[in-house]
C-alpha cells in the first residue's frame, strides 16, 4: 500500500509522447518548444525512438521537432506520435531499476498512471548527451545568447 501523497510536493509535469504501443515522456521543464516538422528550416536527424533503440513502424504518426533546453544548451530531436501533458505526483515517478539501467540508458524513471506503469521517462540530460554524441557536427547545441 502506498502512503498518501504529500500535498507539499509539487507534481512533475511531463510531456508524454504516444507512438503506437510505445509511450514515453520527458519533463516538460526541459522542453523549450515543439514545432511541426514542416516548420523546421533544418529538420533534426535524430529520432528519439531510434535513440531509445526502437524502430518507427507506423509512418502515419505525426512527426514533430522537440527542442530541448538544458541550461545554455539546446538540441532539436525528432519525435513521432501524439503529444499530451501529464501531471505526475512524485510518488508515481519510479526510478528505473538498476538491473535494467544498461538496457535503457536514456530512461531514468517509469511513470505510473492509474496505478500501472505506463510511461518511460527519458532523462533530458541523458537525451541531450546522446543527441550530441550521436551527431555533434550535424546538431550543434544552440547556446542561448539572451538569458531569460
Amino acid at each position, binding site marked *: *500500500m502506498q502512503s498518501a501523497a504529500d500535498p507539499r510536493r509539487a507534481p512533475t509535469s511531463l510531456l508524454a509522447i504516444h507512438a503506437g504501443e*510505445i509511450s514515453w515522456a520527458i519533463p516538460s521543464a526541459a522542453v523549450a518548444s515543439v514545432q511541426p516538422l514542416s516548420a523546421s528550416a533544418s529538420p533534426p536527424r535524430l529520432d528519439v525512438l531510434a535513440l531509445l*533503440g526502437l524502430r518507427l513502424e*507506423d509512418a502515419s504518426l505525426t512527426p514533430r521537432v522537440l527542442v530541448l533546453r538544458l541550461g545554455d544548451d539546446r538540441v532539436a530531436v525528432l519525435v513521432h506520435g501524439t503529444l499530451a501533458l501529464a501531471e505526475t505526483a512524485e510518488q508515481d515517478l519510479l526510478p528505473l*531499476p538498476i538491473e*535494467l539501467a544498461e*538496457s535503457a540508458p536514456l530512461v531514468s524513471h517509469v511513470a505510473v498512471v492509474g496505478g*500501472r506503469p*505506463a510511461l518511460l521517462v527519458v532523462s533530458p540530460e541523458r537525451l541531450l548527451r546522446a543527441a550530441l554524441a550521436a551527431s555533434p557536427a550535424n546538431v550543434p547545441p544552440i547556446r542561448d545568447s539572451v538569458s531569460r
Partner: protein
Amino acid sequence: MRALVPARIGQAWLLLDAEIIREILGSETWLPIPGARAEMPGVIAWRGRAIPVVDLAAPFGFERLVSGETRPRTLIAAVADSIVAVPVDAAREVHVFSPAELKPVAVTHLPYAAAETELFERIMAVIDLPRFVAEILGGASPELGREGVGSHAVGG
C-alpha cells in the same frame, strides 16, 4: 525440510523456494523496457518502486511474455540484492519436502533445475531462481534476443 512453491508456466509445473517468495499477487501490468533482454523484459510497480520482471518462459523455450500480455499470477521474489517479479500462469500453496524427496535431476530437462520431486502426480523441477537472475545480471545466460517492442505496426 524445504518449503517450495509450485508454479506453472504454460504446461510446465515447477517449484521455487518459498523462502525467497515475498508475495504472490494477481495479474500485474508490466511496462516493456526498450533494449531489455527477453529474460528480463520490463518492470512492474510494486510498493512504490519499479522492479524488474523475470520471464522464466524465456530460458525454458516456452511462449515468452509479449508487450501487453500478462499472466494470472505474479510471484515477488527476493533474489540476492534484487526484488523481481515473476509472472506465472498459476501458483499453489507451499509444500514442504524432506531432503529424501528431493532427487537429482533425471526426468525434467529445464535449465536451472537444481533437483526434482513428485507433486500432484507429476515430476517437477526445483528451479534455482537466484542463479538464473544472477546469470541474467552477469550477462552469462544465453541471449535470447532483445525485447522487440519496436517491431510493431499499429495505427497512429
